[in-house]
């Protein structure tokens, strides 16, 4: 099939699908390089629809950085929605890139972004639509190299069989090393094995084919060993001592996407140490971007896009040390351009009256979000998000006094050591908050409770804990619904079955590959979508593969057990996590390490980087 005819065939099916503008590219600031003008073609894939993937900042950054290189072209591909998938399969149209409308199989490297586990079936679907063999071992030198990165792959094992190499940690430098290794391998005319061993030599790259896993008879992992000298274990994640420059070319989608705003990362990492928080553990250390750099990036972003909103991204915006100067510095620009600001992730105890003053003046009318995560002081200590009831109510009062009318409170249920009285306390807290709001704002005060289910994630102090029992979760949700009945408090919650799937996939080992494949063959797709997700294909897939899903989700792991992800070093030592886990069992907290270092392992692993690039950004004391 010629390239021209593929393009025409795509155009002919587009009038039959919903929102065809997702599949055409052609946006302002898209980068299209003539196909033959570069040596290496990289397809950046986000395995969900355009509307979500195009808003992903990590992917946008890689796209921007790779395309700045004269010798590399990065193009984008996303999951087709179900109607488009059917149309493509009917017409035998392979998955194609948005820029040159090239089949994915023509690319040298496929870089897949896996920020969460419920994308795994979409990932397989993409490989299949592209005509690339699902299993790494079935690919040869003619196939593209399949690389995966993102937050989920800190436990790469469940998808290890499908991926040629994982990029663990921050990819901004690593991608160029991967491309360089690929280019020199091409020049050497080597075998596929030679490519993999070259990649294994890059710090942060994990090649699962060069690693063997042994199991105990009961299914627990016995040992994980390298089978090739090039593959050194553990694999230390990559970090950058200083945050790389922000996006300098902002692509502007023509069709509506989830986030239409200029997003700039102000800080990476978090030192609060909430024990349930995967992002907080795997993204250490804290590195801040300077106020000037953020301001310049926002100005450029607004000029290039014409967006009406700015978003400052980090795990805990109010912990950014220059937050007030930053917002003050932004004020004039925001007012002049009539632009809104959103500042997600404010910590209850760390944002000040001053911050509330400026935020309210810039963006009145909007809602305010706080995340106490648990209903009682006791449980908040267990999860290391200490906050007294009095402090919470003080903040709530202040929020309403500043003029906000609607407040959203986030809670998690299913925490370790949780009892039903902790759940009742969630309801009581929300009611007390609403009452407080009514005293200040009258009948217009609104409270919304967002409830999600705790998932014990790898590389966190709770990695040994079990996922709560599904019936227990249902009981807790029912209790909350009952408690809110007849009140004006609105409650929304995540599907506990979807959380259970996430627990299986995030805590799994290599034996899950056939389970994922089987669930996908049974039709599982878009598992992160409430209207598409079904648990049945997954249950059937586990049964078919002779594996017990509870083994992964519902079992407390032994403290001496080899965990399936132990050979990936996320920077925080296992001994530190264990220590922290034991503190939690004793109900003890470990305060923010900005004031005092607890030797989590980050400085021990990466101090050489810090010394090589001194500067104020890195915040370990």
């Amino acid at each position: 099939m010629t390239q021209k005819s593929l393009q025409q065939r795509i155009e002919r099916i587009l009038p039959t699908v919903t929102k065809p503008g997702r599949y055409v590219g052609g946006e302002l600031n898209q980068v299209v390089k003539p196909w033959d003008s570069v040596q290496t073609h990289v397809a950046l894939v986000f395995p969900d629809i355009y509307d979500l993937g195009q808003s992903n900042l990590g992917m946008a950054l890689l796209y921007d950085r790779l395309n700045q290189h004269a010798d590399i072209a990065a193009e984008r591909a996303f999951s087709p929605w179900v109607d488009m998938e059917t149309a493509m399969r009917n017409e035998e149209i392979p998955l194609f890139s948005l820029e040159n409308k090239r089949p994915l199989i023509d690319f040298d490297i496929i870089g897949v972004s896996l920020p969460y586990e419920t994308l795994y079936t979409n990932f397989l679907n993409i490989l299949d639509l592209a005509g690339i063999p699902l299993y790494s071992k079935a690919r040869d030198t003619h196939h593209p190299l399949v690389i995966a990165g993102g937050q989920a792959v800190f436990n790469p094992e469940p998808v290890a069989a499908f991926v040629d190499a994982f990029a663990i940690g921050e990819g901004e430098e690593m991608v160029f090393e991967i491309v360089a290794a690929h280019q020199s391998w091409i020049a050497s005319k080597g075998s596929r094995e030679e490519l993999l061993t070259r990649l294994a030599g890059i710090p942060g790259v994990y090649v699962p084919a060069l690693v063997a896993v042994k199991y105990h008879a009961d299914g627990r992992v016995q040992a994980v060993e390298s089978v090739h000298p090039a593959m050194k274990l553990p694999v230390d994640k990559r970090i950058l001592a200083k945050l790389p420059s922000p996006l300098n070319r902002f692509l502007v989608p023509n069709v509506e996407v989830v986030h239409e705003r200029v997003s700039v990362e102000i800080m990476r990492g978090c030192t609060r140490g909430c024990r349930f928080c995967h992002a907080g553990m795997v993204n250490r250390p804290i590195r801040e971007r300077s106020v000037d750099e953020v301001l310049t990036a926002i100005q450029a972003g607004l000029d290039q896009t014409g967006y009406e909103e700015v978003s400052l991204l980090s795990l805990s915006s109010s912990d950014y040390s220059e937050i007030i100067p930053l917002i003050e510095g932004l004020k004039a620009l925001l007012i002049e351009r009539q632009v809104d600001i959103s500042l997600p992730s404010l910590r209850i105890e760390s944002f000040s009256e001053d911050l509330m003053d400026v935020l309210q003046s810039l963006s009145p009318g909007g809602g305010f979000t706080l995340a106490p995560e648990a209903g009682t002081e006791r449980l908040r200590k267990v999860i290391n998000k200490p906050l007294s009831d009095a402090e919470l109510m003080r903040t709530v009062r202040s929020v309403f006094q500043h003029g906000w009318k609607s407040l959203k409170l986030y809670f998690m249920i299913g925490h370790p050591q949780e009892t039903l009285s902790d759940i009742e306390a969630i309801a009581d807290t929300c009611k007390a908050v609403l009452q407080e709001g009514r005293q200040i704002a009258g009948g217009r005060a609104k409270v919304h409770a967002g409830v999600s289910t705790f998932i014990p994630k790898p590389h966190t102090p709770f990695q040994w804990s079990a996922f709560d029992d599904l019936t227990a979760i249902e009981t807790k949700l029912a209790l909350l619904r009952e408690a809110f009945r007849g009140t004006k408090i609105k409650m929304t919650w995540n599907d506990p079955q979807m959380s259970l799937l996430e627990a299986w996939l995030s805590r799994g080992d290599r034996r899950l590959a056939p389970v994922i494949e089987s669930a996908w063959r049974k039709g599982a797709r878009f598992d992160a979508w409430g209207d598409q997700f079904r648990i049945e294909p997954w249950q059937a897939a586990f049964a078919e593969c002779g594996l017990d899903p509870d083994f992964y989700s519902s079992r407390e792991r032994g403290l001496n057990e080899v965990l399936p992800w132990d050979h990936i070093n996320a920077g925080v030592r296992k001994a530190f996590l264990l220590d922290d886990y034991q503190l939690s069992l004793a109900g003890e907290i470990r305060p923010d390490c900005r004031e005092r270092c607890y030797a989590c392992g980050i400085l021990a692993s990466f101090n050489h980087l810090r010394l090589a690039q001194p500067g104020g950004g890195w915040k370990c004391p």
Partner: protein
Amino acid sequence: MSLNPQVAAVTRIRVRYAKGNALRFIGHLDLQRLWERLLRRSKLPVRYSQGFHPRARLNLASALPLGFISDEELLDFWLDSPCPLTEIQARLAEAAPPGLKIHTVQQIDPKETALQVQMKASEFTVSFYDPPAATELEQKIAWLLTQEVINKTRRKKTYNLRPLVLDMQVINTLAGERELWMRLLAEPAATGRPDDILEELGFPNTAYLVRRTRVILG
């Protein structure tokens, strides 16, 4: 930002532009958002509504269905302070995304009625991916033009399509391809849709590409 109270100082600008292939699958609402962002990028003193979420005041002549391209689209917007037309044109062209080409920019009497109200008719050409024989096309057109009533249902509403077709012909392009040309009524309450007509003639929407070539104001 407060609005300029002197109505006399408000300038109304009409843009004639083309919507090319790159924007073929961008629908009407998305096109409106695209124009709002384009105007913001242009940094022209565009007139905005008041309130927390100010929006540019825009007036598009006639919605172009998803999947169509166009040589001529019309849009009006308003400026709070005057600006030379050449500068407006240059700034719009610079801020335009791929697929949107600015043809002309002119100043309009602010008292003129809204563009949608002035709309009278649109002309379209239709090119076929697998061009049918000329005689087949001729016959279909002849049949359609001799009917008095052709009932068509769109979004559960039935309407008579025939009076919306003002004229229709087979044409040959310079490249030697056979195309269909049509002029359709485009009044606020009675707008002909080329895709409905083509469906009536037996062509599914995967068989052709529609291009609006002209909009006719009253």
